[in-house]
């Protein structure tokens, strides 16, 4: 294997992690869409969906509740980012940014991966953590999806990716960009054994995530109102010098333009994915009794 760097990348010590920070149950949360205040506990009981229907973002660990209880087993929880470019600028210091994000999220990087079961059906999963540098896709992110896809290939089980990302991790430069083909190569291999990749796009899904695995998943599910696109809204507005329609790049806009398969509200997500998995993994249940007769 070719050595990736002639100079050893700057070693990077992950920051100290804090135990789970409990939010007091009596705190109010203001919905960014309708402005209404809801108790934290009430909001959590409703999967962080406001009464107005606005889906607030979930953290990676919160999403693990989607699976059968205690079925989620994390893999590759020990891979940590490096600072390959030695990224230091007057306004920005990658190593420091990593340390802060690790402190705030309790994660080494913007993704967790592992195995789980959903209504009894085994699958491999990856979940992004948007609070970690905007869920951006760098080396660890790419490595974890590639490994999850490779495990799914070995075990012949489906892959589920739950996504919220602003795009490629700028601080790892072109190495981040090269995670796109790395991930898609692994997914192509998974596809070759007839195992589906189901992508859930939550708010937001932009850039590298869209331009690699998420938009070519076998089944694409979006949450209501999720913003999904290749180029950011600001970039497009600057380029064309006019205001874009309000629903531009919304999940509803993408459905209308044929880019996603369905929009599924959060409280129906578990059942929807379980039903889909059943259709693909046990394709002909009528065959069993007939075979038994012979």
């Amino acid at each position: 294997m070719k050595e990736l760097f002639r100079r050893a990348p700057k070693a990077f010590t992950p920051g100290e992690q804090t135990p789970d920070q409990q939010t007091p149950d009596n705190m109010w949360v203001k919905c960014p869409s309708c402005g209404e205040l809801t108790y934290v506990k009430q909001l959590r009981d409703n999967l962080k969906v406001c009464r107005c229907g606005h889906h607030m973002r979930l953290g990676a660990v919160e999403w693990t509740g989607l699976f059968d209880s205690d079925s989620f087993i994390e893999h590759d929880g020990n891979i940590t980012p490096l600072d390959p470019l030695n990224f230091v600028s007057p306004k920005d210091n990658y190593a420091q940014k990593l340390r802060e994000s690790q402190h705030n999220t309790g994660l080494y990087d913007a993704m967790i991966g592992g195995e789980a079961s959903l209504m009894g059906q085994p699958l491999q999963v990856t979940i992004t953590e948007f609070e970690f540098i905007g869920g951006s896709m760098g080396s660890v992110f790419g490595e974890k999806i590639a490994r999850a896809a490779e495990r799914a290939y070995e075990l012949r089980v489906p892959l589920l990716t739950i996504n919220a990302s602003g795009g490629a991790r700028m601080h790892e430069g072109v190495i981040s960009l090269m995670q796109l083909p790395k991930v898609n190569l692994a997914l192509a291999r998974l596809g070759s054994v007839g195992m589906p990749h189901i992508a859930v796009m939550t708010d937001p899904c932009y850039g590298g995530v869209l331009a690699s695995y998420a938009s070519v998943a076998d089944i694409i599910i979006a949450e209501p109102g999720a913003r999904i696109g290749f180029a950011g809204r600001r970039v497009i507005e600057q380029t064309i010098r006019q205001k874009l329609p309000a629903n531009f790049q919304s999940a509803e806009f993408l459905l209308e333009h044929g880019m996603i398969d369905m929009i599924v509200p959060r409280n129906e997500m578990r059942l929807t994915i379980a039903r889909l998995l059943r259709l693909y993994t046990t394709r002909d249940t009528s065959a069993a009794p007939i075979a038994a007769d012979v």
Partner: protein
Amino acid sequence: MKTALTAWDKVQISRNVQRPRTLDYVRILCDDFFEFHGDRRFADDAAIVAGVGRIMGRSVMIVGHQKGRDTRENMKRNFGMPKPDGYRKALRLFHHAEKFSLPVICLIDTPGADPSMESESRGQGNAIAENILVMAQLRTPLVSFVIGEGGSGGALAIGVTDRIFMLEHSIYSVAAPEASAAILWRDSSKAADAAKTMRITAQDLHEMGIVDAIVPEPEGGAHLDPENTVRKVGDLIMNSIEELSAIPTQTLLDQRYQKYRVIGAFDTLTTNQHGNGEPLVFP
């Protein structure tokens, strides 16, 4: 002095309006060439030119970004920024190349994929992703050459190949320097700083092991001696096609898998992470 060039100098050279573009390569290298048009779905995107030609006695598929040299041509070519239709034309011709066992040569020279409402509406992200997925599995040798700007996903959409080469003063980046500066510091005027910090030169990429080889340019840049530069590029491309064509297809695909699989900078610790928060209870 060549060695004194900064990253930003190289950005300027890579964008020089007289720098040889895809059609110059076609003109200088091909004994015969037909440009093919259209994605058979919506349009023909002039930001990507593609077709079949013959170089040094071998039939090849050529796919490349095409920038213009004046305002009028740049309007037509959209400054070398393809729309989904351009990528889907490339995709169609990748399949075509596989069907007829033609090696594929991709010439990369784009500031990035077109960011516009129409491109978004027709699935820019999907078009790029689809190409990456198909190139990953294409059963024919692929070679890419960054001849100018390698701008982000817009470049990668024709850049997943068995060999990646760059001209000495070309660049390859996760986002154009202006865009990088805007994303990182909300200030696109800091593009020169971004160019330096983000290590986007051919030499940087070679050092990182991403690029297989660099072809030197005449002092001052390829535009000062296009003919010779293009021929040197052609020699390297055809040599590697020769070499790749001798490899059994499955081995070629396995090597392609490995080539990208090993790219990444991370460490493996003995301790595991444990994220904050509690799982929610889904019905």
